[in-house]
């Protein structure tokens, strides 16, 4: 699973949403898999169940999750991940922030790219390990 | 109400140590006969006596202790909020706790009293006395319970308001004392007792009601409980005392027409008479009036004695009586000229209760006889004693002033035997005030059953 950090600028529901998407992207959650119930995820993350419910609702509306009455919430058979343009926007936002931080501390582009590369690997490994 | 029983049961569960203590106390009377000091009494009597004392003391102390902790402890330990966070009405809380307290008291009393009573009824005997004792004990317990609660609320709030409470309590007691004294001056002992009991009962009801009110208004807060209690308590007491005061004021102002079976004492001459009797609808409150049959005018005599220590002059123009602030104090002689618009004249002379006296017709001189056969003549204007003599014999004394300088004194010897047919003798003397000499005039003997002397113009009549 993933953790949420209330100290981040991103609201918790969005962190949950992104966390779920990450897990699907990395294969930790496969199409048709049962997703943790709102209650369980709320207990695990120690957040308000309404927050989890909100994230789940968005994911359901976006076609990432499907709800089967009486059975629970599942990853959709063909989860529609972000369209390419949306994905690029999200990447650009995060990249701008990262670039800004790197520049402000005086790091070179090479250093920044190296660090980015190793961090990407690390996140993938952690996700594989946790799920 | 089901919740009421839940509250009561909870409180009672906590009281087990009390019942254990009661059981221990029940054993005490049986230990008392073992003391050497009790050897001079029969065992049964000792057990009974000490049993009654132990039971009464234990129950009374318990009542006060329960009152103090009833709500007060929860308030000061900030635990009332527990009850107020439940779906409980203040009346449920209050009456539930009261019920538990009353049951605790009753049960404890039975525990302490019963063993002794069953084993050793002793001199008190079963039945009669027990009811009297219980009927006094349980109201006292209730009073201590409620008083303990009120005091606990007032003191535990640690507010200066308690000073006001104490002042008002003193004022209440003082007012009560005034009302009782007013009734006392009319010798209304039965009425005083009824008055006391009714007032006590009303005050207990007020305390019960105010306990409920304080919880309703003050809830879990110490200070607000105190404020609500004080406000409701003193307002209610004020209203009740005003009504009681009104009642007492009405009682102590009867008119002569209100007298039931009045006794009339006519002056030897003239139209004046002393009329006394108990007033209708006023219990045993007694009033005295001077009444002029010629003008139908009546004068109320206040604060006078119960006994007929009054005196009419032979010409029916002077009246003397004894007055005191309270019937158990010494009396002052007061002279009332019997004419229109007369004011009573306080002589400043103190006469002991039961002392005999006579006044001269013009109201200038008084002779007083004390119980040691000493007769003193006083001049009322100068308030000085002008003659003092000692009577040779003791006995019942009657006297009258022939004129302001000569007093005729009759002494009725009381025979040692109290047989009614015994012979009675009366000795007559005359006292000359100017020469301060006592002259024996003669003896009379009679076998009359009762002798009463009424001085007439020329002499004295016997009956």
């Amino acid at each position: 699973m993933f953790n949420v950090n209330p100290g981040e600028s991103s609201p918790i529901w969005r962190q949950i949403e992104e966390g779920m998407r990450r897990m699907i992207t990395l294969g930790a959650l496969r199409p048709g898999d049962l997703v943790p119930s709102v209650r369980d995820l709320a207990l695990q993350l120690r957040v308000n169940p309404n927050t989890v419910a909100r994230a789940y609702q968005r994911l359901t509306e976006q076609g990432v999750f499907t709800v089967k009455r009486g059975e629970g919430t599942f990853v959709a058979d063909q989860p529609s991940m972000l369209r390419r343009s949306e994905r690029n926007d999200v990447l650009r936002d995060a990249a701008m922030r990262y670039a800004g931080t790197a520049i402000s501390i005086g790091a070179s582009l090479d250093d920044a790219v190296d660090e980015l590369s190793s961090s990407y690997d690390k996140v993938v490994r952690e996700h594989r390990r946790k799920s | 109400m089901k919740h009421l029983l839940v509250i009561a049961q909870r409180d009672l569960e906590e009281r087990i140590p009390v019942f254990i203590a009661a059981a221990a106390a029940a054993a005490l009377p049986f230990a008392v006969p073992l003391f050497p000091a009790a050897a001079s009494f029969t065992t049964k009597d000792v057990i009974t006596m000490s049993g009654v004392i132990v039971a009464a003391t234990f129950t009374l102390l318990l009542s006060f202790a329960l009152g103090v902790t009833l709500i007060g402890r929860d308030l000061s330990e900030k635990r009332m909020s527990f009850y107020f966070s439940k779906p409980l009405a203040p009346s449920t809380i209050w009456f539930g706790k009261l019920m538990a307290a009353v049951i605790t008291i009753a049960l404890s009393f039975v525990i302490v009293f019963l063993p002794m009573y069953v084993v050793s009824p002793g001199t008190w005997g079963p039945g009669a006395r027990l009811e009297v004792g219980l009927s006094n004990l349980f109201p006292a317990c209730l009073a201590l319970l409620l008083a303990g609660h009120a005091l606990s609320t007032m003191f535990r709030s640690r507010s200066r308001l308690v000073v006001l409470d104490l002042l008002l309590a003193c004022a209440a007691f003082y007012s009560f004392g005034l009302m009782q004294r007013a009734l006392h001056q009319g010798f209304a002992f039965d009425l005083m007792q009824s008055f006391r009991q009714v007032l006590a009962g009303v005050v207990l009801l007020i305390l019960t009601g105010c306990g409920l009110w304080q919880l309703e208004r003050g809830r879990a807060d110490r200070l607000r409980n105190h404020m609500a209690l004080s406000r409701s308590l003193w307002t209610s007491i004020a209203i009740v005392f005003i009504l009681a005061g009104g009642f007492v004021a009405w009682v102590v102002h009867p008119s002569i027409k209100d007298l039931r079976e009045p006794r009339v004492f006519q002056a030897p001459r003239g139209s004046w008479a002393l009329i006394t009797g108990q007033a209708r609808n006023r219990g045993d409150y007694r009033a005295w009036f001077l009444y002029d049959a010629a003008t139908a005018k009546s004068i109320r005599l206040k604060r006078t004695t119960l006994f007929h220590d009054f005196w009419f002059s032979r010409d029916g123009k002077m009246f003397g009586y004894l007055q005191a602030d309270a019937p158990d104090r010494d009396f002052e002689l007061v002279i009332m000229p019997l004419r229109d618009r007369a004011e009573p004249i306080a002589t400043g002379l103190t006469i002991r209760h039961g002392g005999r006296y006579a006044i001269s017709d013009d109201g200038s001189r008084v002779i007083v006889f004390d119980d040691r056969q000493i007769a003193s003549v006083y001049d009322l204007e100068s308030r000085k004693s002008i003659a003092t003599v000692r009577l040779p014999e003791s006995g019942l004394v009657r006297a009258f002033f022939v004129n302001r300088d000569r007093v005729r004194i009759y002494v009725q010897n009381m025979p040692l035997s109290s047989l009614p047919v015994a012979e009675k003798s009366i000795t007559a003397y005359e006292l000359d005030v100017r020469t301060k000499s006592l002259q024996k005039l003669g003896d009379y003997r009679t076998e009359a059953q009762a002798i009463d002397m009424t001085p007439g113009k020329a002499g004295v009549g016997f009956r």
Partner: protein
Amino acid sequence: MSQAETPALSIHELSVRYGRSEVVDRISLTVPRNAVYALLGRNGAGKSSLVRCAIGQQRATSGRVEMFGMDVWRHRASLMERVGIVAEEGDAPAEMRVGRLADFCARLCSRWDRAAFDERLKRFGIAQKPRFGDLSKGQKKQVSLALALAASPEFLILDDPTLGLDAVARKSLFEELIAELADRGTTVFLTTHDLAGIESIADRVGVISGGRLVLDEDLELLKARFRRIRFASRPVALESRFDTAAVRPWGGGTEAIVTNFAGSHAEIAETAEIVPMSLEEIFIAVAGEGAAA
């Protein structure tokens, strides 16, 4: 208003005065159904008085307090059927054993789940035999919470629920709370000093300072608009571009606590460091230094 619309708690222009000092000064706030409202405030700011008025145990000097649309002072007894209260100090009778306490409460509440109470107590690791007075402060709180939840309340009011709790107990408490929220959608109103703990749980946050409600806002929106912005040098017309709660020198430059940060300000990221603020930092900025106990 329909059932779903009347707020669980509605406070309108509440004032509480002790003698001459105004402890609560015209506070209005609303706790909608199913929401979690956290009231923050320093000691002595008026929180306790407000809570006492909210639960019908103190009469306000002026103003209105309504729960589910009913005046709390007048209808307290019937409202307490639907409300669970966990007091700041364990106020149950000290001589009562925990099990007897549960029996007592069971007989007063129409809905009572003894099994749930027993399970919770097991989860907390508290036996039913000890007397309430012998429990630690934290354990008393846990028992009080278990008692409150066993009655399946629609509305849960907690006064500083984590005070006296160690880390494990605190975690337990939040888990119970979250489970309750998930299972029953209970409305929650709590006062706290544990800002980190409730940061992920509260929907709405209120800050009381000096008797006034200086903040009453959706937590998410609050956190979205507060930022700590660090400039290398003090920018020109800082105050005209932003609403600031504080501006102070930072190293050679300036740090400003901005209260109206919006997406449109993101461009500043090129020349300044923008740091999000935790609830605790926001509270300190709003209510003063040394605020979070």
